[in-house]
């Protein structure tokens, strides 16, 4: 390869005209010229040193002293610290009292960073017995990665031949992963038993009703276990097939008028208006059986169709029990294959009734 020498245009001039020769700065007249231009200081260039010193002396007298700086620095740090603390505490207090979606959003954001804002509203009392779900209706699926709190939903009585009222008590711990757990207050319609409380907002963090179970995964792993009658719902007709135990992955958004809804330990599903990632939790049994009559009693399912639960491709096929759930964030652990009082078969057939149940999420 030919070596290019700077300052030799003849050597590189033939290279297609794309290479420009550099001036020779190492030797030659140009180098001498530049060296003279950048040469050492001359005497006449340093004549103004005395004036410069005078100017420096006068200017240095007006400089702020270091002591003043040392005094000001701690004061500024203290003031800024106090202001930061004040703003932070005020913000946290305000975030705890924010209503509705704003509060949930704030709690979700703060929860994501490890700051948990407690509720200021009183917690509605919930009877302990209401948290005892029917064995046939207990869904024990826990989507631990969704971070949802265990929920208990006890089936209540049917008040008529065409209507079966569902009463659910959802104790939802607030998810730590930002998954929204909507208010459960909308579940209180036409409750047969007053012991079932829906007044508690499920978005409240770590608010368990007295006697309520903090963990949800009480679903019997033995699908052949005999059903137990809910203690709080004496009029409740066992509507679920004891052999079909819901795993707990819930598919939400059920607005039904009949049947029995067991909103048990559903922690994997997310209700209708919630499009969080909790719906992608592994299904442990609340899987809609394809071909199962859905919403046969006029139930309206408003669950998002974009749910990623592979066992339940569409939430609209899940609602057969008719549990009226309008709130968001409720987790319905369906008893798959359940036949309601109207003879409606619950569409939530378990994908695997013996699927392992994840431990209850007790994330604060």
């Amino acid at each position: 390869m030919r070596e290019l020498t700077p300052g030799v245009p003849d050597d590189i001039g033939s290279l297609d005209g794309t290479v420009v020769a550099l001036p020779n700065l190492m030797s030659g007249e140009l180098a001498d010229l530049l060296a003279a231009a950048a040469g050492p200081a001359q005497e006449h260039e340093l004549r103004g040193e005395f004036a410069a010193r005078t100017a420096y002396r006068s200017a240095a007298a007006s400089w702020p002293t270091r002591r003043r700086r040392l005094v000001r620095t701690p004061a500024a740090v203290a003031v800024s610290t106090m202001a930061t603390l004040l703003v932070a505490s005020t913000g946290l207090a305000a975030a705890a009292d924010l209503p509705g979606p704003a509060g949930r959003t704030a709690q979700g954001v703060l929860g994501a960073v490890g700051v948990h804002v407690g509720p200021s509203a009183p917690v509605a009392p919930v009877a302990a017995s209401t948290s005892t779900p029917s064995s046939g209706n207990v869904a024990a699926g826990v989507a631990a990665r969704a971070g949802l709190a265990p929920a208990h939903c006890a089936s209540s009585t049917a008040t008529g031949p065409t209507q079966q009222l569902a009463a659910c008590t959802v104790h939802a711990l607030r998810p730590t992963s930002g998954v929204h757990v909507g208010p459960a207050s909308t579940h209180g319609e036409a409750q047969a038993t007053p012991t079932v409380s829906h007044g508690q907002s499920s978005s409240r963090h770590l608010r368990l009703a007295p006697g309520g179970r903090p963990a949800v995964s009480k679903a019997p792993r033995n699908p052949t276990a005999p059903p137990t009658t809910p203690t709080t719902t004496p009029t409740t007709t066992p509507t679920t097939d004891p052999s079909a135990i819901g795993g707990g992955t819930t598919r939400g958004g059920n607005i039904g008028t009949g049947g029995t809804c067991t909103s048990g330990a559903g922690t994997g599903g997310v209700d209708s208006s919630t499009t969080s990632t909790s719906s992608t939790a592994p299904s442990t049994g609340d899987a809609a059986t394809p071909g199962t009559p859905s919403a046969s009693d006029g139930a309206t399912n408003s669950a998002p169709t974009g749910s990623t639960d592979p066992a339940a491709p569409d939430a609209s096929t899940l609602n057969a029990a008719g549990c009226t759930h309008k709130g968001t964030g409720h987790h319905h652990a369906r008893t798959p294959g359940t036949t309601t009082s109207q003879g409606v078969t619950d569409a939530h057939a378990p994908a695997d009734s013996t699927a392992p149940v994840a431990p209850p999420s007790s994330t604060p």
Partner: protein
Amino acid sequence: MVDFRGTLNAAQRGDEDAFAVLWREYQPGLLRYLRMKAAPVADDLAADIWLRVVRSLPTFDGDEAGFRGWLFTTARNRVTDWYRTGSRRPELIEHASLVVLPSASNVEDEAAEHSATDTAMALISELPPDQAEAVMLRIVAGMDVGRVAEIMGRTPGSVRVLCHRGLRKLEQRLVERGVGAPASVPTEQREVIHA
């Protein structure tokens, strides 16, 4: 300058001698740059620039290249202000600045060196303004391309092009005029400059 950081810290603490070291180091290049940009008022502008530098000296934080860039940026802004106002009004000059210090070197050598520098500066000043400024900042002031680009408000590539064109034009003029730079500056004192 042996230790720029130490000298600068001392100057920032109020050490007048340390400031004098800084001033002697950077005054020649500053004055040459100003003579190319605004020859009639180069000395006055230099004094004003140093006054501004002194006022802001305690707040300066940087290395030698940063200080050099700060100084020449201040100079360029001051020259721009001077051209913008178009002022030719006389300014008060302190009597101390008029004092001419006796020369410590040989008169003949000083004349020869003065001639060499003046010749070089005259040739550079004949370049187009942008090219002359790029060559001055890049070669006389000894700043890198990035710093020159920041001062001139151009891209580094543009500065390289300006320097290259300016140097080529200087070379061409030297050949045309038959003017050779006097060998007053020893070869070992010359700085290797890569445009």
